[in-house]
């Protein structure tokens, strides 16, 4: 009894591991693509948030100054307000 249980569990787990590998293999395009073209750009833009960069010379670390600038910039605030206005006014109408 014990021997069959062990045998069965081992066979099951070998199958399960096989299925894991197949699962990763089939999902690989998405996993790689997500890492390369979604996660990386997002993390990269978070990193860029703290840099001053004109694309020509190497980026310079400026701390929170970009955020400070965005929060005190009239145009940025205005466009945030406009987006909110548009979203909350236009979407309920539809």
């Amino acid at each position: 009894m014990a021997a069959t249980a062990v045998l069965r569990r081992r066979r099951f787990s070998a199958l399960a591991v096989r299925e894991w590998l197949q699962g990763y293999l089939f999902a690989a395009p998405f996993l790689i693509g997500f890492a390369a073209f979604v996660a990386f750009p997002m993390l990269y833009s978070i990193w860029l948030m703290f840099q001053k960069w004109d694309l020509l010379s190497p980026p310079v670390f400026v701390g929170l100054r970009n955020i400070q600038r965005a929060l005190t910039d009239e145009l940025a605030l205005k466009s945030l307000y406009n987006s909110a206005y548009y979203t909350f006014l236009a979407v309920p109408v539809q």
Partner: protein
Amino acid sequence: MATITAPRFLILRRSRRQIIETIGLIVLQIVMTLALITFLGPTLWMISSSLKARTEVFAVPIVWIPAVPQWGNYVEALNLLPFGRFAINTFGLCLLTMAGTLTSASMVAYSFARLRWPGRDFFFMLLLGTMMLPEIVTLIPRFIEFRWLGWVKPGTVLGILPLNYLPLTVPYWMALTPLYVFLMRQFFKGIPMELEEAALVDGASRFSILFRIILPLSKPVIATVAVFQFLQTYNDFLEPLIYIRNRNDWTLALGLRALNDVQQTGQWELLFAASTAVLLPVLLIFIFAQRFFVQGIATTGFGGR
């Protein structure tokens, strides 16, 4: 019998309800007609303007049917820029993205639908999360990444494909189209497990299960995804605008935009002629594939199991 001998007040009530229903239908009809006019009006005006002489385009009152249809507008408009070349480019890109999406999304969808592996549900949530992510957010870092990969330079891949087409196609080979993966997963979940189990018992590999059992049973969802992907690539303007450098590699959408620049002399009828010509394939596809649009929406709503 019962209906004939029903008391009078019942008949009255029913007819009153019928009146209300009729009024509702009339209101609905009016609203629908107004919506139809709103949506169809500009399109019809564009089509009719494409056949007008220059003086008729902005004539008041509106000329709906041109006195003499100017079929030559089409010839002239499509020769202003190499539109034949643009059409080949666009259809090539459509084929590449459709093939990519169908291959990668079906594999990934199968993995999410049927295979059990650690982290599956987490990654499925991530996939759904990307659906919410506005494309604009990652646009700039993505461009920088593609530039770093060397995909925004002039040049070709193996001498066939412009290098600039890689940013426009490679993501589609990576199943980065969450909606389509989701649609396919839901469809796959609805296919009886027993078919697959029988194949497994007979010693089929997962690949042959997917390609010889699941996919042949999934023609409706394949058609839906193919049509959606075609339209997405065909209508895409922003990404080709950003990545494609050489005019020979332009898509139809870019060609149409450039025609606006050519129109310094106010040749609006030519712009409308080109627009109508570009609209035509989409219209044809919509007419022939309408069934799949409806199916696609129905699948989104009800899901599988």
